[in-house]
Structures are given as structure tokens and as C-alpha cells.
């Protein structure tokens, strides 16, 4: 059990550094086990240094930088032990346009072996999906699934708005 954990940890560590560098186009991030503890009990410490910036403290990162760092870790775990399915709920809310594009680039590389579903309000994310499902409440208070034509994304949310009061 201990070997398996340490082996997985080291695998994730490698992927985390690589995905972080890719999403931030530089910088350095790493995960370490809390010093002087048995690997089966130790906590996981995260340090991240952004390209061109001196600070290493996680608390000084911006909202978007924290989201991108957390996504790097999540995708690193994913790469080390792929699951056939993944569902992410509005993880792009704090990201700017350039970071959304880079994040989706990485997700699409994994999507050969994994079925990804993302809940989103972001137009860029919508345009990068292969298909869109709409969830709407034609009858107030009751959800139903509708198909959304990719071509009408600009107004897709508007066209699905619950009926006017």
C-alpha cells in the first residue's frame, strides 16, 4: 500500500510540474509530502512560483491563478490514473479568455480516452465543445434536457430562458 501511494504521488508530481508550466507558460510548481512523516499519514504541500514573479505564497495568487493551479493538480491526478469519465461544474468562471483556451487545450488532449462533460456559461468553452446539451425549465420548476444547435451559441442562453413571467 505504501509503495503504491508513493509511486502514484511521484507520478502526479511529474505531471503537475509539466501541466502547470504549460498552463502558465513558465514558472515552477511542485507538491511535496509533509516532511518527517510516514507517506501513509503525511499531508500534501503545494508550492507554486509564477513566471516573472518572486512570490511563492499560494495566498498571494490571484483568483484566476489559484483556479489554474488547482486545475493543474486535478489534471495531473487525472493523467496519472485516467478515469473513463469526468464532470466539471463551472471551473472556468474565474479564468480570462487566454487561460480558458489553454485549459481546454489540455482537456481536449485527454478526451481521447476520457468522456468529459463541463457545465459552463463561458462562450469560448461552449465553442470548443463537440456537442452542447441545454438544461431548461419550460414548465417552471421542472428541468428538462433540450438539444442546442452549436451555430446559435451567441444567443443560446437567451433562447433557453424560462418563459417570461
Amino acid at each position, binding site marked *: 500500500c505504501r509503495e503504491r501511494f508513493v509511486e502514484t504521488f511521484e507520478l*502526479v508530481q511529474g505531471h503537475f510540474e509539466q501541466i502547470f508550466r504549460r498552463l502558465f507558460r513558465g514558472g515552477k510548481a511542485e507538491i511535496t509530502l509533509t516532511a518527517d512523516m510516514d507517506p501513509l499519514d503525511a499531508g500534501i504541500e503545494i508550492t507554486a512560483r509564477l513566471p516573472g514573479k518572486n512570490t511563492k505564497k499560494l495566498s498571494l495568487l490571484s483568483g484566476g491563478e*489559484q483556479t489554474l493551479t488547482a486545475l493543474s493538480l486535478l489534471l495531473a491526478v487525472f493523467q496519472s490514473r485516467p478515469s473513463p469519465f469526468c464532470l466539471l461544474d463551472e471551473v472556468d468562471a474565474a479564468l480570462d479568455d487566454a487561460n480558458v483556451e489553454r485549459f481546454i487545450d489540455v482537456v481536449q488532449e485527454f478526451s481521447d480516452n476520457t468522456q468529459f*462533460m463541463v457545465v459552463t456559461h463561458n462562450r469560448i468553452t461552449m465553442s470548443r465543445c463537440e456537442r452542447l446539451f*441545454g438544461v431548461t425549465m419550460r414548465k417552471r420548476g421542472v428541468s428538462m434536457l433540450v438539444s442546442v444547435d452549436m451555430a446559435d451559441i451567441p444567443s443560446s442562453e437567451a433562447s433557453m430562458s424560462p418563459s417570461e413571467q
Partner: protein
Amino acid sequence: MYLKRIELEGFKSFADRTVIPVERGLTGIVGPNGCGKSNVVDALIWVMGERSAKALRADAMDDVIFKGAEGRASAPYAMVEIILGDEKGEIVEAGGEVAVGRRLFKTGEAEFLLNGRKVRRKDVRELLMDTGLGVRGYMVLAQGKIAAVLEANPAERRSIFEEAA
């Protein structure tokens, strides 16, 4: 094993039986605020055996049963099923389907189902672990939880890894 579709009935705002196909690649789930997108995420977390109502954004477990809406009575039970494709015949014959389900009645009676037969929660979780789908850990990320990955203390972060190890 891979996921073919998610079926909901009487679960939160999904009063009617709703089938959500799961395809390869990247699928987007879109729609206005409050229409039921995150309820789909909750449905997946629930069917995989989640025991905490709080993790389902509910005060008590029976909050997952459709409570009624304008001109629509509440549902007698909530039910979610995930249908897995069994390409290599690991569970049933090759090319067959495996249905993993959970149901909760207004009366309080609760059950887990495997191809329609009642089983224990433990059986469902073992099956899901064996298929690589996992039981939640890192492959379903609820709304607003991305920031929690960095904010968690080192010991809490272990749970993501243990699931993957």
C-alpha cells in the same frame, strides 16, 4: 467500461424521466441560472453512494426528491441510474450494459440497484472502483469546489490522492 447515459427521475428538479446521453470527447452543459445543471452533477455524486446531504447541497437526504412545482405534485421517489457499456464483457456478456442505480422513497426506504436487482451500497462502490470510474474523488467536481483544492489543509488534500492510488 465506459459511461453510456445518465437517467434521472424525481431527482431534485428533474420531475420527469430524463435521459442524458454521454458521448466521447468534450460535451458542454449549458442553460440559464437555476435551471438544473448542477442538479445533474448532484445526481452523479448521489448514485455513486454519497452519504452526506451537505455534499448534495441539501439539508436532509430527502431534499433530493422532487418537491413539486407550479401545478405539479411532488414525486413519490427520486431515482438515478448510470448505464455503463461493458465492451470487454467484464461484468455481463461483451457488448452488454450494466445499470447502476439508487432510489429513495418519500417513506424513507432507500435502495441501491444493479441491473434492477437490490444490492448493498458496498457492492456498488466496489463495482465502480473496479471499472476505474471511481467513487467520486477527483472525477466529479461540484460548482465552487475548485478553489477548495488549494484552500484545503495538507491532510485533507490526501483524499484526492488516495482515491487515485
